[in-house]
């Protein structure tokens, strides 16, 4: 007898419908799986057989052939366990076939017949909906994630007997209640922990308000990393649409299992030894990299100069387009990468440039600068130096709480959303040169200040547009409808490379 079960396999950030065909016939007992499966699929035979027996079902002593269709697609992962088991049960007439007309199944089996959580459940559920399937059975831990998809009946089950009950026509169990996550946001570290660094906090506020990229420089131990880790606490909460996009990526990479919707903006801080494919994604079966994991959140590159040149170069496309395309043979997979870039660096090899204790020669600093400079530095909107805090600042309480900064950021973002209505953009950082011209209203003084800076040669044409975007954000924070000269001056201040300033170092 033949049984057909519908399940899905992951393909980048989308899923493909797979039909698992199970055929039982007389002959020497055997259990074969064909259809380009990986090691996890091959090993699935042992799990399915044992799970069925331990869950109290019969394992037919027949010649069993399992085919995963379409045959040309490579199939990965243990998600086929449940489909294979259901196919065996139906083919051996332990279950009626009609249940499988309504339900698709997805899940890994344990030897005792229990269902284990799987990565990529949200993507599978989205695939099920677009394939026009009425219901999806998934492991109970992943049920809330699958339920994020509208118009799809989701059954969260804990074991094979429960699956059998649903396929026999019983109503699926209630979805588990949402996990307690109220404390999550409060647990994020607060800006009030930072002492001194008033200039850097202002720069971080501007960056958060306009989604601009920010480079922090300063001696070791001054608090660059500490400040960067608090950047999340001053960013607006994710919209539902953004949260689903983040959940999809994190679920596919197995970093987020069984927690429903991701509600906090991601903060990714990869180590500087990371490879280009680790950063932007890759692998023979392309998987998203850190740039995509930081989608709608922050990608923090600590010690920017230590990252390999190829790794930094690979960030150009994601930074520019908000998307990365990975080409493998005939196929191209794209991952979204709309992250905000935060980076930190020592100002010179020893880290103490500008202080008396710096022992670096001008040539050392020039070499250090060269490592940083180039395409990436040009894409930094704000550069701020964090000198050692003064002794008084260390004694004082941090004055600026994340709450107050967040309020200002939300206010400024509100203005941007109103201005950008109809463009599909959400922040000043995304403004194209055309939109800057159309939407950024600057007064005569602002234009004069910009012209002056451009004439002095301290600004590239690309920098020119960047200054206006940052100035727009500064004016938004101030509640001003027009960009004024002072906004441009402040933007220019944060644009100039203090430490990396050629003029300041060489004569």
């Amino acid at each position, binding site marked *: 007898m033949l049984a057909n079960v519908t399940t899905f396999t992951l393909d980048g950030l989308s899923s493909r419908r797979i039909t698992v065909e199970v055929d039982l016939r007389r002959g020497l007992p055997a259990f074969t799986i064909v259809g380009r499966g990986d090691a996890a699929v091959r090993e699935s035979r042992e799990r399915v057989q044992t799970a069925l027996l331990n869950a109290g079902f019969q394992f037919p002593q027949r010649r069993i052939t399992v085919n995963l269709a379409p045959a040309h697609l490579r199939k990965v992962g243990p998600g086929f366990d449940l489909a294979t088991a259901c196919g065996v049960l139906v083919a051996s007439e332990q279950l009626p076939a009609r249940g499988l007309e309504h339900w698709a199944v997805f899940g890994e089996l344990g030897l005792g017949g229990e269902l284990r959580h799987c990565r990529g459940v949200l993507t599978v559920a989205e695939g099920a909906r677009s394939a026009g399937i009425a219901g999806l059975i998934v492991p109970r831990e992943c049920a809330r994630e699958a339920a994020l998809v509208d118009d799809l009946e989701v059954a969260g089950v804990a074991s094979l007997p429960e699956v059998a009950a649903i396929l026999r026509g019983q109503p699926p169990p209630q979805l588990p209640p949402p996990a307690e996550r109220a404390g999550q946001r409060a647990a994020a570290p607060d800006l009030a922990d930072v002492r001194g*660094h008033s200039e850097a906090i202002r720069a971080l506020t501007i960056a958060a308000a306009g989604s601009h990229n920010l480079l922090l420089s300063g001696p070791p131990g001054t608090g660059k990393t500490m400040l960067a880790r608090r950047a999340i606490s001053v960013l607006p909460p994710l919209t539902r649409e953004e949260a689903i996009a983040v959940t999809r990526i994190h679920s596919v990479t197995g970093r987020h299992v069984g927690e429903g919707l991701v509600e906090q903006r991601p903060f990714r801080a990869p180590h500087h030894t990371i490879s280009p494919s680790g950063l932007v994604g890759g692998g023979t079966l392309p998987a998203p990299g850190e740039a995509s994991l930081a989608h709608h959140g922050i990608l923090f590159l600590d010690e920017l100069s230590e990252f390999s040149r190829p790794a930094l170069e690979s960030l150009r496309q994601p930074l520019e387009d908000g998307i990365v395309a990975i080409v493998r043979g005939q196929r191209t997979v794209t991952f979204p990468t709309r992250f905000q870039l935060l980076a930190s660096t020592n100002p010179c090899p020893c880290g103490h440039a500008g202080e008396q204790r710096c022992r670096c020669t001008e040539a050392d600093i020039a070499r250090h600068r060269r490592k940083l400079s180039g395409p990436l530095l040009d894409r930094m909107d704000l550069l701020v130096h*964090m000198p050692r805090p003064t002794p008084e600042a260390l004694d004082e309480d941090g004055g*600026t709480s994340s709450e107050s900064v967040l309020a200002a950021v939300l206010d400024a973002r509100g203005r941007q959303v109103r201005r950008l209505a109809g463009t599909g953009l959400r922040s000043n950082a995304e403004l194209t040169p055309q939109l800057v011209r159309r939407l950024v209203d600057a007064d005569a003084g602002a234009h004069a200040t910009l012209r002056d800076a451009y004439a002095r040669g301290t600004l590239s044409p690309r920098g020119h547009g960047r200054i206006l975007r940052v100035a727009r954000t500064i004016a938004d924070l101030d509640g001003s409808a027009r960009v004024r000269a002072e906004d441009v001056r402040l933007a220019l201040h944060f644009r100039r490379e*203090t*430490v990396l300033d050629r003029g300041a170092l060489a004569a």
Partner: protein
Amino acid sequence: MSTCDACLRRTALVALLAPHVERGRRDRRRLSEMLALPDERLIEALGADRSAAIRRAHEAFDPALARERLGGASMHAVCRHDPRYPPRLLEADDAPAVLHVAGDLERLAVLADRDVPAVAVVGARHASAEGIEVARSLGRGLAAAGVTVVSGMALGIDAAAHAGALEVGGPTITVLAGGADVAYPASKRSLHRELVRTQAAISEMPPSFRPFRWCFPARNRTIAGLASMTVVVEATERSGSLITAELAQDLGRAVGAVPGPVAASRCAGTNALLRDGALVIRHAQDALDEALGIGVATAMTGRRPAELAPPLRALLRRIEDGRDTIASLAATPDEAQRAIAALSELELLGFVRRGPGGHYVRLP
């Protein structure tokens, strides 16, 4: 006729012996004594076991070929017998036989008159931001008053002095240890290009010559010889700039130094010079008063207004007191934003400059 055959031969000999000079110095013979020796004695003193080969090469020297090479490198040369050779330099016994010039030969004219002053500004390679600013402003102030700034294009003070002079269009002359057409240090390529284009780079060594260690103190003797006064900005106790000062003193030229904090090792050399009676140079005006006579020329003060608004004046004072970063001037982000605005204005007016590490430097 700008160079005679004998002087070209002499230059070629020094270049030929260059790899052996370091050994000669280890014999505790003074470099300037050595460089003053006549050809034959020089070969004996330095050639050692290779004397014969060097003598043969020296005898085979072809002046025409040397002139051709100079032309090929678009350079000029003047020997000590040429009237255009700077007369002040001739006062030294060990003056170079030939000066090779990259850039227009006419620019040497600023050194043609013994009574027209030129000031050497030299100092540490590893200089502080303040030192760099002082050197730059000395270069600017002296050049603006028409006084030629002589220096060695080294990192730090030297390069800053040249750059300051270039800001007002010179005159400035750089003396290099290697060939005048080679930018040394290489990181000063753009400065070298600018100096050759609008000013002049000179060297006693032939074109494309790569300098040996001894070439740097040798170059210092040329700097000291060309200048009517030598000013040292920041030098440690063992600095090469002190050699320049000493050589200048030996030639009876004025020596000045910029005072620094007594505890700072980077200023130990200059402070020692001051204790020994060097002139105190605080700014370009002090140097101009010494070089030209008191009150003859006024160093320009730039775009600075006479009266500064009280808040800006207070801010300037706090920077002078060492609160030189925005974080140390402002406790809250709002204050920081106001401080940035005020500092931008002070910078525009030429009172401060933002230096490495976000430290604001009070400009002299």
